[in-house]
Structure formats: structure tokens, C-alpha cells
């Protein structure tokens, strides 16, 4: 409830009084929330309607971010790039009643999947705002589902900025052209209507706001809002120790046989500025994990924005204090015509992780243990639903099996946070909704024992999910990351357990899949089983409250073995804590050497597969597809 009373903190300029300023600020937040509800409830496809893989944000006419409170971080921090491209391509041709559509990653979008609707909002004849709705589409007309593309033409239809409404007139031709190039056009049409509807909801509210305050006053308040965030961000960064900090991370693979792809973040804190540079990262790869400029900037920014006071509004004023660069042609900033289809999550999580690891050295109390990455269950399943007489094709992402978040100083991690690039903003579908909408029977969705990184505060638990197709086989796309390079533990905490996936046969034997770019065809007598990654721990597990360790053992989340060997807690046969033995064990286990900001600091530390595999099981590894070696490059624009 604390509201600072000094004028320096409550409002920005003498023209704006604290109350009007507060109303304006909160009105923008509320509009973002209202847009989100309108989109989520009206959308057809599960990505948007169930899983919240979408963002609604508001920019001013100069492409300055004004509100992002209710958005997925990766979607909106770099969203100004789309607007700048529109301004470049449509000089003097942005008019009242226009509405733009774009998904092209080389025109500022995060990746092809993130279709974006941008609507200029005019009041009193002047262009004042942009209302922007970005939502992950269930399909983009790619050649094959999954991680198999090796250039941008195979990834699907590319939409550079186009007008779908021109001065109020709907461009049926353009919309038809788009829908003819994607699968499930009925679904995607519904989604597009929902996105336009959401942008219009914002337009309606923004116009109410401008008619209440007047355009001139609105413009003053925009400046005040940006200045306010600017000032508060500056104060936060000034309080951080100046220095140069380096963090490293590795993606498991790219889908075409390259493993342990390296990202290096050099974070320089100087005065009220944070500079992030990715020089030294791997060159871009053949597979689809290369980052677009927009996604890289957003994921890098998240690594810093999550370390400052969360009540500071995330607008242009914050972003002014970040200077983010990456060499063109690296995996962190791919050059045309690289594939970027999975970059939001699959290099994105490594980018933010590398920034966090650097920031951990500057502000140890504020940076969490590592977060689990986009999990193999999320990459999806597809098939035909024959339960209701007809045969209907379906596709879905199984978010109910997603990865967990890391611990923070003082707080255990949350489960099912999916990916650091969403910071927990996404939703998972209910088990029952999944079974009603898709011909899947979920046999299990439970926390996996010892999957959370140990620590004084433990990470969230990974989830074991067992999925059986009903009546007809389903095709599961193998993807996901963080299995070979699990989330780091911070300041003495352990990394989360890796995770992975296998098909379990009727005879109990299992086929494991390591890497990406593969499919598993699962029949009704088989089970698709995924283990998601647990979050990294924070602080030494030897300092965890023994009572909480006991609770974990009783709840079958911490094995007795781990309690003894990792947490140093000894329980007797009645599950009571033997305090004396515990003290001795903890003394015995306490490391002599200096605690590192994060561990592991090497590639390929995941041990999940080894811990699971038995002699009866087989393992299929990601391969380099032979056609890649033969393909003639015709990268000519």
C-alpha cells in the first residue's frame, strides 16, 4: 500500500498532479488487462485461449512502449521494432481506420509464429497511440511441424507489414491471401478476429481516456509516465555496483545435430546504464533456434528488468537504461535467411539465463536460480479425433507438463512456469479440458521426486506427464531444451534435474529421444511420457529448514537419500528429525571452497537420461539430416 509522497516519486512534472497521473498510469494497465481478457476469451486456438501465449501492449505514436504490465516479456519489449518498420514502409500512409498485420522476424517480429496486429489510434485527428496484439498462432503454414526447418522459406508464410484495414475498409483480399497459406484456416480466422477485437477494445478505451483528458494533456502524461519509470530505473541501477560481469549458457541442440550451442553475455553496469553484449556467442546455426533481433532484445532486457523493483512500470523510460547489442550472424542475432521459428524460447531461455548469471555477480540477492526451459511436452502432439463420428484433425501443446521456475533468495520456486521468457505469465490447460477437446487420456501429471534443484530455497518441481492417445495414433514433436543443460543453482544451490521424454511400449520397454527435430508416433497401446525440468535452487541446501526437508520426504518429493546426502537431514524410522545427527551430517558435508555464483559452469551437465535408462531401453539421438549437406544455397534476395 505504500505510495511515496514525494513529488519526485509520484509524478513527473509540475503539470501533472499525482492523482491524475496515477489515474493515467493505472488506466493504461487496466486497458492492457481488458485487451487480454477480450483476446483470451474470444480466441479459438489453445495457444491463445488456454495458454496465454500472447501479449497486449500499448505504444505511443513514436513507437515508445507505454504499457506492458500484462504481457509476456518476450513479446513486447522489442515490439517497437514492428512499429518502426511500419513507419519506414508506410511513410505518410498511416491513417485513422488502418490496421496492420505482420509476422516476419526480419521486420521486427519475434518469430513467424507470433502474428501481430497493430492498430494506430487517432484522437482529435492526431495519431496518439498504437494498440498492439501479438499472439502465437497454432500454425504458420510451415513445410513440416516442429524443428525441422533449416531456412526461413521452410518455416511458413512470411507476412511483412501489410494493411488488413485501410482507412476503415477491410482488405478481404489480403486476409484471404494469408489464410490460404496456413493450416486450420477456420481456427486462425477466429484467432485473427479475436486479435483485431482486442486491439479495438484498447482503441475504444484509449479514446475515452483522450476525450476525458484531451490530447495535449495525454501527451504530457505520456512524457510524465516515461520520465517516472526512467527516474526510478536510474535509481535502481545506480545502486548496483559498477563492473563488467560475464555469464555463459548453452542450448542443448538446434534440431539439426549441433549440440551445446554457446551464448555469452557480457553485462557492463556503469552509472545508471546497463549494457549487454553477446559478442563471443556461437555463430548462427542451421536449425530454428537462432534469435531474431526482437526476441534477443526482449529476452536480454528481461534478465535486467526482473532484477529491479517490480512496481516500476515497464515502459520506454526503463528501456532507456538498457543498451543491448549482439553481433549480426551470431545465434543471438541471426542474419537473413536463418531460421528463427523457436527462438523466443529455445535460444531465448539461454539468452536470459546468461544475463541472469552475469547479474547474479552484481546483485546476488535479486537473481533467482535458473528456470526450466521450454519442455518437450510443450512442443506438441497432433492426430485425428475420431471420437464423434467424423475425423477431425487436431494439434495441441501439452502445457500441463511444463518446466518449473528457480528459487529466489527467501522463496521456493514455482512449478509449471514453462519458460523464463514468459516469467510465469502463461497458463496451462486443465486436464479435463484437454481430454474433452483432444482424444488424449492423461494418465499422470504429478511432481517428479528430486526434480527440484536443492538449496536453502528449492526450485519448483518438474512434472512427470503420461499421455495416451485414444483410438488413433498421435504424432508427438520432439523438442524442448534444458535436459542436457539443466537450470543452474545459485550461490550454493543445486541445478534442477534435466528431464526428457520417451515412448513406453506395452511390454514396458522404452524409447528415449534426445534432442529435437524428431517425431514419435505413439499408438493407443503406448504412452508418451515426459519429465519436465525442475528449477534451480538458491543457497546451500545445508541451510534449508530441516522441517521443510522432512515435509518433502513425507510428501515423497525428496528421497531419503537426497535428504541425507544433499540436504544433510537425518530422519529416524518415524520420519522425525534427528537434530544431532543432522548437525553432524551438515558439518561433514559443508564444502571448504568458496561458493560460486552459479553451477554448473560447464556444458552438458544434465544426468537425467543416465539416471533413467535401463538395458531394455533404446535411445534415439538428434541427427544431422543428410539433405543439409547437399542443399545448394540460394540465399539471394
Amino acid at each position, binding site marked *: 500500500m505504500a505510495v511515496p509522497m514525494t513529488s519526485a516519486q509520484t509524478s513527473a512534472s509540475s503539470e501533472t498532479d499525482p492523482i491524475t497521473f496515477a489515474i493515467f498510469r493505472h488506466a493504461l494497465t487496466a486497458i492492457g488487462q481488458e485487451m487480454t481478457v477480450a483476446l483470451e476469451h*474470444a480466441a479459438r486456438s489453445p495457444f491463445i485461449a488456454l495458454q496465454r501465449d500472447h501479449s497486449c501492449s500499448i505504444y505511443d505514436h513514436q513507437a515508445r512502449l507505454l504499457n506492458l504490465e500484462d504481457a509476456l516479456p518476450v513479446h513486447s519489449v522489442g515490439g517497437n521494432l514492428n512499429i518502426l518498420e511500419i513507419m519506414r514502409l508506410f511513410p505518410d500512409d498511416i491513417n485513422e481506420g488502418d490496421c496492420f498485420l505482420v509476422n516476419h522476424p526480419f521486420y521486427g517480429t519475434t518469430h513467424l509464429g507470433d502474428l501481430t496486429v497493430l492498430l494506430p489510434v487517432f484522437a482529435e485527428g492526431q495519431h496518439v497511440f498504437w494498440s498492439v496484439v501479438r499472439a502465437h498462432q497454432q500454425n504458420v503454414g510451415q513445410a513440416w511441424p516442429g524443428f525441422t526447418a533449416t531456412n526461413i522459406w521452410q518455416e511458413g508464410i512470411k507476412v511483412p507489414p501489410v494493411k488488413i484495414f485501410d482507412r476503415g475498409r477491410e482488405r478481404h483480399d489480403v486476409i484471404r491471401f494469408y489464410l490460404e497459406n496456413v493450416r486450420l484456416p477456420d481456427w486462425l480466422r477466429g484467432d485473427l478476429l479475436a486479435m483485431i477485437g482486442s486491439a479495438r477494445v484498447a482503441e475504444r478505451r484509449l479514446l475515452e481516456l483522450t476525450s476525458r483528458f484531451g490530447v495535449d494533456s495525454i501527451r504530457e502524461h505520456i512524457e510524465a509516465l516515461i520520465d517516472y519509470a526512467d527516474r526510478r530505473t536510474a535509481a535502481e541501477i545506480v545502486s548496483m555496483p559498477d563492473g563488467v560481469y560475464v555469464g555463459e549458457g548453452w542450448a542443448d541442440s538446434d534440431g539439426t545435430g549441433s549440440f551445446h550451442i554457446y551464448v555469452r553475455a557480457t553485462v557492463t553496469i556503469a552509472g545508471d546504464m546497463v549494457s549487454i553484449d553477446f559478442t563471443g556467442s556461437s555463430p548462427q546455426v542451421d536449425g530454428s533456434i537462432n534469435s531474431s533481433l526482437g526476441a534477443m532484445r526482449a529476452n536480454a532486457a528481461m534478465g535486467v528488468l526482473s532484477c529491479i523493483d517490480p512496481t516500476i512500470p515497464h515502459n520506454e523510460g526503463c528501456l532507456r537504461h538498457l543498451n543491448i547489442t549482439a553481433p549480426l550472424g551470431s545465434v543471438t542475432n541471426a542474419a537473413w535467411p536463418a531460421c528463427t521459428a523457436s527462438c523466443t524460447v529455445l535460444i531465448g531461455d539461454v539468452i536470459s539465463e546468461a544475463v541472469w548469471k552475469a547479474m547474479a555477480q552484481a546483485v546476488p540477492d535479486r537473481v533467482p536460480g535458473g528456470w526450466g526451459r521450454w519442455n518437450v511436452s510443450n512442443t506438441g502432439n497432433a492426430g485425428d479425433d475420431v471420437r464423434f463420428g467424423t475425423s477431425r484433425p487436431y494439434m495441441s501443446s501439452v502445457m500441463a507438463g511444463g518446466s518449473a521456475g528457480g528459487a529466489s533468495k527467501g*522463496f521456493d520456486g514455482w512449478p509449471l512456469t514453462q519458460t523464463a521468457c514468459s516469467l510465469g*505469465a502463461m497458463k496451462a490447460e486443465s486436464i479435463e479440458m484437454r481430454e474433452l477437446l483432444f482424444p488424449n487420456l492423461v494418465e499422470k501429471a504429478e511432481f517428479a521426486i528430486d526434480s527440484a534443484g536443492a538449496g536453502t530455497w528449492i526450485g519448483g518441481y518438474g512434472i512427470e506427464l503420461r499421455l495416451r492417445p485414444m483410438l488413433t495414433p498421435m504424432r508427438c514433436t520432439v523438442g524442448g531444451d534444458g535436459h542436457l543443460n539443466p537450470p543452474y543453482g545459485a550461490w550454493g544451490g543445486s541445478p534442477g534435474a534435466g528431464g526428457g521424454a520417451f515412448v513406453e511400449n506395452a511390454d514396458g520397454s522404452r524409447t528415449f529421444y534426445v534432442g529435437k527435430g524428431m517425431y514419435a508416433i505413439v499408438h493407443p497401446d503406448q504412452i508418451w511420457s515426459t519429465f519436465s525440468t525442475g528449477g534451480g535452487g538458491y543457497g546451500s541446501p545445508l541451510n534449508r529448514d530441516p522441517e521443510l526437508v522432512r515435509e518433502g520426504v513425507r510428501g515423497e518429493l525428496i528421497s531419503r537419500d537426497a535428504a541425507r546426502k544433499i540436504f544433510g537431514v537425518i530422519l529416524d524410522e518415524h520420519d522425525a528429525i534427528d537434530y544431532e545427527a543432522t548437525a553432524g551430517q551438515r558439518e561433514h558435508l559443508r564444502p571448504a571452497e568458496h561458493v560460486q555464483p552459479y553451477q554448473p559452469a560447464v556444458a552438458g551437465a544434465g544426468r537425467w537420461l543416465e539416471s533413467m535408462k535401463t538395458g531394455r531401453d533404446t535411445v534415439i539421438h538428434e541427427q544431422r539430416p543428410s539433405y543439409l549437406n547437399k542443399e545448394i544455397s540460394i540465399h539471394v534476395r
Partner: protein
Amino acid sequence: MGYRVGIDIGGTFTDFTVIDQDGTMAIHKVPTTPWDPTEAVFAGLTGIAANRGSDLQEFLAACERVTHGTTTSTNAVIQRAGAKTGLLCTEGFRDILEIGDGRKPEVYNLKLRKPDPIVPRYLRLGVPERMDYSGAVVRDLDEQSLVEHIERMKAEGVEAVAVAFLWSNVNPEHERRALEIVREQLPGVPVVASSDVLPLIREWPRTCAAVLSAYIHDGIASYLGRLKELLASNGLKRQVLIVQCTGGSATVDEIVARPVYSLLSGPAAAPVAALLFADGVGSRDIISIDMGGTSFDVCLMQHGDPIISNELRLTGIPLGVMATDIHSIGAGGGSIAWIDSGGALSVGPRSAGAHPGPACYGRGGELPTVTDANLVLGYLNPDYFLGGAMRLYPEKAAEAIRLHVAEPLGMSTTDAAAGIFKLVNFHMVQGIAHVSVERGIDPRGFVLVAGGGAGPAHAGMLAEELGIRQVMVPRQASALSAAGMATSDVTQDHMRTLSIESTALTAEQVNAIFREMEEEAAANLATQAGIAPDRIRFRRFFDASYVGQVHELMVPAPDGDIGDIGELVHRFHEAHERLYTYRIETNPVQFYHWRIRAIGAIEHLPRVEQPDAGPDTTHARKPARRAYFESLGGYVETPIYDGALLRRGNIVIGPAIVEDTTTNIVVFPGHQVTVNRFGDYGYTVGSS
């Protein structure tokens, strides 16, 4: 006809509203007794009886309705002080309570505590059994393991059991059987099945509704049982009714069967009263506010219907049920003003409560509160608080503010008090904006009905800042919830799952499912609450989406039978377009849930109208005192009026203060109050 009584136990005061046979309303207040809330109930009722020259036996015997709102269960959840609860769930799904919908609120806040799941994992036990989406049995219930799990719970000393299996909303057979076995094995231990509490799709809210119900069952059952017994043994011949989170009331038996409906119920009654009082100004677009000692509750009503929501949560746990959407913030008369680590003034959410209370109560409270600020600013009369029943100590208030706010901030005590007043108003304005502006509703055309002991001192300023022109302060303002309880209808919600597409659904099916629920509800209301069938009306709703969409919309269905399914489909298209800007006429509609609300309407007594006494107010003048008004540059000599003497037609021009027995209206400069035909205060912002 007898007395109708509403009893609302707040954090600071226990409020009573009594409606006499002739329709006059009176209020009564006693301090809340947190160690045993019934103590305050009996003190209050005894006092009311004495005021009528009667004794408790005689008064209770003459009561036609006693409706009670309780925070017992809400507090039990907040403090995690409920029963030691075990959960029997489908094997493989032990973690539904912790997994939730996977969404972490406050995205950028990495230091957010996970909600405590109420049932620890070692008491969440998976039973081999399974239904599919159609209710067909995939795996039989393994009664042997069920019994073993119950044994384990017994050994652990479990005091309540929730049973929540997947798809029990479609086929409750396994849950029913499990219920029987638990009852056999654990006699006397309350057990709640999710299909009895919330038979809707989505396992998380359904499991939560069952767990919450089991968790609070014994607490609420024993409290209400004791209350019922005490009232009956003291002469009450009628049933005690309990207000629910839907704003309607229910019998004790009904609440004990579905305890989740008692959660967050207290504030849900205030809008019922607000609607009644706003009749005086002929408006049904209302924002009701209730500012008590600890919290500030807001509810918005459009066309007389409060906004309802099935997304209410308590400490992060969803209730699942359809409830009146009340927004609550920690701002009340008892809210403590303090200086945060950054040197900024803050107010609340911590409250001094009733004990020790604000510094000015002189009960040992040393920290400055909003009430202390109001006293220093001259808005309260130290000799006429609660009609003079309680003395206030201005010097203690000033000292607390000086010591804890003014000195640290280097300002005068007056400026500090004015800052506290302004800051708490700021929070309340935000609270009102949350239910209006933030939902895209412009509050300016609404009537602000101000309730709670502290509300009317602030309402004029809140209205001015929000651009609201009309405020209504009922005579019963300080007991708004209690008044709502005394006048609330008896209601019961029923629901069913039938997931089906519009192309396969017939009007006969729809009519049958609604009628079945209505008959069940009517039978319940008749046997439990003695409500005659002709006093019951029904509202029908359905939840639907377009086929392929996955979020359903709750849409009102026509009253009574439909002739064609098209009537529902049409209503769905309309609702979808209104909310989400588009419709797809060619798309079939997927129906999920069917709901009815049975309303046993109580007969409202006509309110007593006063004769017009004209604008003159000299008869009500009390000695003037100095009060602080920022727009006038500081303290000014301010006229004071005795509210008890103000009559219909009397006009009070601001700056002024109206002192009624239990509330205090501050009429700010440029505002005015006109007493309406029922004696309530019509407050206008700006000259009318």
C-alpha cells in the same frame, strides 16, 4: 409479521440492523469480541431488546428473520486455522492443488510466495480409479487402496476429508462410493465430494471448492450450530439464515452442506442494501462502498445486477463458485499510518482493529490511524462518537500523528493528518477505479452509495475525484452489510455439466435439465427454509463457447421453457459480440454447464416516507467547530448539524458536517446534502 434482523460481524464492530413491523429501520453497534463472536451478538441483541423495553426472550420470539454474516470461515482460511484435511484424488493427480493453472501472478516479481495448498502432499492420496470425458469408467474404483489411504489418514489424525476425482462432474459414481466408504471408516469426520459442491468441468477449481469446504466444515458447523442453539434457547422460533458469497442467504444446514458458499460472504450483503437505498434516487447503476475499521469493500452494479464472477480467490485458492464480485482493499478507519523504509508515508493495510483501536480511543493504541487523522482534522466530534457512547481523545490522536508521522516527515501535525486523509482517499479511489474504469465502465453516471462507519466522511471527496456527481448516504450507512442481510433473499445455486454442441442439443433436453434443477432447489427451499413455491423465482444461465473455443461465457437463458435451441444460440451470439466485438453466426455453439439460481424473494416492507419539511436546517444546528478543508486553505469555522433532527427536504451546504448517531458526513466545500423522502442523505458534488 415480526422483526427482521441482520447481524454483521466486522473486524471492529458487530453491526445490527432491525426492521420493525412498520418498515422502520434501526441500527445498533457493539464492539466485536474476536475470542467469541457470539458474545457480541448477544450483547447487541440484548441491547436492542432493552431499547424496545423488552427482554431478549421476548424480542427473539418476535423475530421473523435473523440473518447473519460470518467471517469465521474466511478467517480460518486466511490464517490456515481450519481442520487437518486429507484429499482423496485420482491416482496420478496428487498435485492439482499446487499446480493450479500454472500461472504465476505479478510476472516480474521473482520474490512471490507460492500459495499454501491447504492440504500437505503427504495427505493428498491418489486412488486408482478413472472416468473419461464422457463419464465412462476407464478404471474401476480400487476400494482396497481407498481403505488403505483412509487408514493412513486416520493414523495421521485427519479431521476432514475432501474427495475430488477427475470427471466426477460428469459421473459422480466413484466419488459417491468413496464418500460412503470414508463415512464408514471415519465416522464423525466430515467428508465433502467435489461433485456435490461444484459439479463443473476443470479439476482445479472443483478440487479447491471441495478442499475448502472440508477444511472449514467443522469450524463453521460448530460456530453456526452454537449460534443457532443459543438463539433458539433464548427464544428465537425461526431459523437463522446465513448470508452467502452470492449475496443471498441460506439456512445453516445448507451452508454446512456446501461451506464454500460462506467464504467471502460478509461484504456480499452490502450491495443488496445499496440497491434498496438507491431506490430513493431512482438509480440502479450503483457503486457501493463500505469503509469499516479494517477494510474498504467496493461493488459495482449495473442495472441493479452486481457483477458476478467465478474467479474469486482467497489466499490464492479459487472458490470456483459464482459469487458477487467484491473488491476489497486494506483501508479503513483503523488503518495505521506509517513511514516506510524509503521514508514515504503509507496507510494500511495493517489495522489497529477494535483492540487496542486507534490512538484516540484511549485503549492503549499508540499508532496513528485514519480515524485519528479525521479527529485532528475536525471531521469527528470527540463527544459524539457513536452518538456519544464512546469518548475520543483528540490529544492522543494528535500526539500519535506528531510522533509517528509529522516529526519523521518534518511537517506539522495538521499537514500530516491531511496527508493521511488524502492518501487513504487515493487508495480508495484506486479501489473504485478497479471495479469501474479498469473494467471499461465509466463511473461518472453511477450513484455512489456510501456505507461503513468511516465511509461517509470520505465519500464526497472520493466522488469528486472520480467525477461522480451523486452520492447517497443511507441513515443505516454504518451498518450497510447488516441492512443487506436483513433484506437479502434466500437463494440457492444449482449447476450441472452437459457438454454438447448446439447441433445435437434439443429444447426438450434443455427444459428438462433446468426444470430438474429448479424442482430440486424449490424442494430444498421449501423443506429447509419454509419458503412457499409461489415465493420462489428462478434465473437460468448457461455456459457456452463457439465450438473450438475453450473459454466459456456465462449467458442468462430465458426464464421458463424454450421452444427452440436457437433461442439460446442467439443469446450466445449476442453476448459474445457485446463482450468480444465479433460473432460467427455459422459456427455451432458448444454448451458446457447449466445453472439456475433459485430466489426465495422476501417481501420488502414499504419504506416509511417523511413529510417535506423544507430546506431550512436551523433547527438541527449544533455548535460550530473548526475543521480542515484543503480547498479553503486550512481550518475554518464549520457548521455542524445533528443528523437525527434533519428532515426530508432539509438542505445542508458545504463546508459542513452532519453528525448522525453512528456516522459522520463531511460535506466538502461546493457540495451539498438534501435529505430525501426516506430520510436518507442525498449528497451532490457541485451545486445542483
